[in-house]
């Protein structure tokens, strides 16, 4: 515990961005984890006496048009949004590493073929690609994870590939190869550990974008289906209320959404800064 405090103190002084980023995300993680203890209502529980009621003592942040408690839904949504973003980015990283390693290590025809394939994927703006794949797969959390993983994987593949390419030509890789070690083992033991630095910097930023994509798709009705609590679909459901001045249905989930992405953004920014200082 004391050691943790020391690390936190040093980070606070030397790397404020990383410190605040980690703090925000830890806060979200804990609130999401403890959601049942922090809320009086379930995320899809309907209060038949309060439809679209303004914040008061029974519903601290009001209810939506279906009589569901905004605060509870916003808190429960943390689970969905964090889960989808972290899992999908992890899958994207894994796919990217596999493709990048194969492409960068073996080179030649395999490399060219894989890169042309990525070209096609990357010639679509990411959101259009996400929209199309989401339309193919249909709504649902698992499908969203797949969509966001597919959309983000090509960038990691390229990143890993270029790193691997610069490592493959090093002497120690040649000597490993000459001493008869298998390709897979060379990749895992000698090349991979040295090629992951840029991935570590980009991944947190990417988790923020993943939530943006998720919320955007849900906002358009192609993401997490209602009544499941998710920030984007909550904003979508509340979007018609703003013209009549009803703010709580869309402002509350939106603030939670922006603050969460902000946490990922400054964490990524902090990592980049650390890299520049080196």
């Amino acid at each position: 515990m004391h050691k943790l405090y020391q690390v936190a103190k040093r980070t606070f002084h030397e790397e404020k961005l990383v410190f605040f980023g980690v703090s925000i995300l830890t806060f979200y993680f804990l609130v999401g984890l403890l959601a049942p203890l922090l809320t009086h209502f379930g995320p899809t529980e309907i209060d038949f006496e309060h439809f679209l009621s303004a914040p008061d003592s029974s519903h601290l942040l009001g209810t939506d048009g279906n009589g569901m408690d905004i605060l509870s839904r916003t808190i429960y949504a943390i689970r969905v949004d964090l889960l989808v973003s972290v899992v999908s980015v992890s899958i994207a990283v894994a796919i990217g590493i596999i493709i990048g390693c194969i492409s960068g290590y073996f080179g030649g025809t395999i490399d060219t073929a894989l890169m042309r394939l990525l070209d096609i994927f990357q010639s679509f703006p990411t959101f259009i690609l996400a929209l199309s794949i989401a339309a193919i797969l249909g709504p649902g959390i698992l499908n969203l994870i797949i969509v966001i993983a597919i959309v983000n994987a090509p960038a990691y593949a390229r990143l890993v590939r270029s790193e691997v390419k610069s490592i493959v030509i090093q002497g120690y890789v040649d000597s490993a190869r000459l001493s008869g070690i298998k390709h897979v083992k060379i990749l895992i033991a000698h090349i991979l550990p040295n090629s992951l630095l840029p991935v570590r910097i980009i991944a947190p930023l990417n988790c923020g974008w993943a939530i943006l994509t998720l919320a955007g798709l849900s906002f358009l009705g192609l993401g997490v289906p209602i009544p499941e609590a998710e920030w984007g679909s909550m904003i979508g459901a509340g979007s018609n209320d703003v013209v009549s001045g009803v703010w709580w249905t869309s402002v509350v989930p939106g603030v939670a959404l922006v603050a969460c992405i902000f946490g990922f953004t400054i964490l990524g920014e902090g990592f980049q800064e650390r890299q520049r200082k080196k």
Partner: protein
Amino acid sequence: MLVGVVTFTFLLVRILPGDPVGTLLGPNSSAQDRIDLTARLGLDRPIYVQFLNFVVDLFHGDFGKSIQTGRPVVEELGAIFPATLELIIISLFLALIVGVMLGLTSALREKKLSDRLIRLTTLVGNSMPEFWMGLILILIFYGWLGIVPAPSGRLDTGITVTNITGMEFVDSILTFNKTAFISSGRHLFLPALTIVFVISAPIIRSIRASALEVIASDSYIAAKAHGLGGLALIRKYLIRNSLISLPTLSAIIFGFMLGSIVLVETVFAWQGFGQWALKGLSLRDYPVIQLTVMTVAFFYIIAFFIADVVHSILDPRINI
């Protein structure tokens, strides 16, 4: 490149579950009706025959007819695309001005209060979903203050403008139509503000980073040491060298906006390209989806071409 995109899209739309015939006829249609319509649309033929027909038509400049409306998709695109292009280009133009000014200010006052404030705004802008930003602006400017028109469409009802370019705001200037100019300007204000806020962030970041590099460079220090100061220093040394990364960045942002404009359009009921494409996608309107992807890919290429040209003007060392 374009060939790969076209082929990929063609195959992609055909593996979409759900078919256009089903969405057109509705759930109560008879099996015979479905078979007839499928045959009439040519969708009963093998995929490779459909693909060959599609490619041959493409070379004749025929992009097909919308399955839903029966009108040629090019005609539909021509009616709605200018409005979207206008929104994106005006926003990009404003964002470039704002971004360059704030980015330079931030770099020149590094680590001072204004720099910190600008950087914080940039980080918030990076984290801001455009659709939520739009809703907040509607809430403030329409819901509470009531100083802008309701977020529905591009002109107030009853106001028309002679169609020259299809871009209402530009047309109203070209025809000196004052009422239409004010009306479309008021409708344009919030969506443009939304986009400007979101896309200024990467521009400010990029300008700030390259300006800091210039400030630390030998030539800049030498110029400053020779007593060059004030505007001449900023204009001749700082701005010109800081702008080099801007054309490519603008092209990337343009492509990004074209892809996600549907979010802003949905919030403001803009009735443009994004909403048209989304409708085509959800109704499985194959020709609409194909033309959408081709349009996006085409404008992507054009944007990068323009960026390359501007880049070579800014930086004479580059040849294209």
